[in-house]
């Protein structure tokens, strides 16, 4: 309980820091603030999907349904953060590029990620029997594991991007004000805590549901 209060206080504090303490980037103006939602959510999407894949592989190796609950929960939550990142990015694109969506490579890759994990969850809903569902979903997750690097790193290279450079640019040092970076990093830490808490809940619910089925 205390931990949860601390978590919410931390997220609130990082948001306030982002809005009041960190400066605005000259050209971007007020749209700088989208960064505090967009960047941590996008990073967390990768963490969540990576976590899901890791547990899918672990499930295939060890056949422990706990890994399956982790994989499914992380995929659901990752999709949630993916939607946050996409929507916030789209709003920012409307303000800066003049349209909500124009198939910029970054938009394309995150859209593909949403499609893949939407398909993963649709597949789960169509499989009967928890062992079979866990096994086949884990196999699909491994297939996605092959596709995702291509979708994120290779396919976008075929096109030209307008997306701002990654935080660490080619010269290896951050271009933006350290205060902005600190606020975004704090937000990321807070959201990671949120993710861990929600995932733990989701895994516990799955375990209880399984226990009730067995009983």
């Amino acid at each position, binding site marked *: 309980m205390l931990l949860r209060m601390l978590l919410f206080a931390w997220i609130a504090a990082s948001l306030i820091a982002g809005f009041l303490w960190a400066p605005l980037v000259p050209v971007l103006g007020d749209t700088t603030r989208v960064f505090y939602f967009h960047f941590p959510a996008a990073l967390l999407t990768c963490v969540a999907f990576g976590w899901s894949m890791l547990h899918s592989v672990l499930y295939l190796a060890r056949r422990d349904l706990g890994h399956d609950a982790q994989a499914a929960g992380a995929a659901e939550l990752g999709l949630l953060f993916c939607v946050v990142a996409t929507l916030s990015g789209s709003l920012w694109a409307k303000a800066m590029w003049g349209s909500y969506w124009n198939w910029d490579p970054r938009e394309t890759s995150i859209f593909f990620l949403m*499609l*893949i994990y939407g*398909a993963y969850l*649709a597949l789960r809903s169509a*499989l009967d029997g928890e062992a079979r569902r866990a096994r086949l979903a884990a196999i*699909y997750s491994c297939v996605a594991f*092959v596709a995702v690097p291509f979708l994120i790193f290779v396919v976008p290279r075929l096109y030209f991007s307008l997306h701002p450079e990654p935080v660490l640019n080619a010269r290896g040092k951050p271009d933006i004000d350290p205060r902005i970076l600190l606020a975004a990093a704090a937000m990321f830490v807070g959201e990671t805590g949120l993710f861990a808490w929600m995932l733990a809940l989701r895994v516990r619910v799955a375990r209880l549901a399984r226990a009730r089925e067995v009983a």
Partner: protein
Amino acid sequence: MPSASSSSAAAVWAILRKECRSEWRTRYGLNAALLFAIATLTAVSFAVGRLGDRPDLLAALLWIVLLFASLAALAHTFVREVEGHTLTLLRLTASPTSIALGKLLFNLLFLAVIELVAVPLDLVLLGGPPLHWGRFLAVLALGSVALAATATLVGAIIAQTRGRGALFAAVSLPVLLPVLAGAVSGTRAQWSGAPVGAELRLLAAYGAAMLGMSLLLYDHLWEE
């Protein structure tokens, strides 16, 4: 446990022959895919006329027609076994890997037949600048391998779901998008005379990665 010999080339060859024979008995998948390709091409060509000066559109249309015409049939090799209740018997006679490789080879052959009809028809109906044959065939071949490797594996998963066919397109398209992107980009590039090395590498790497992943995963596919 399947013996070492059952995953040998002989078993793969036997599965391939069995697939060809059972497909040839009904020709259900072949007829459906060919008619789908022809119907789509006719509809597109009727709706937009000749697109000789738009290689970008031509490349996209060609691959979309190929993709959708072949998709349903590529999953069919496994769905047929489940619906005919023959999968258990098949698994008794061969190892998962040789079943998978046999079906993959069959799907490749199947794709080649579809392409043999659909590609010339597409070029005739929609027009287009002259082809650079070497590059075009390389893109077509590597694209087909990547497409078949991916669709065969996803088809094996899908065959075990409720409502099999309905989900296949939704589940396989996201993982086929790199293939589609690479193949369309390569086809477009060869029409404008540009090099297609990057696209060929993308398709080859994707096909190889998917094939490697398949070999690792097929042992986990059937357990009950």
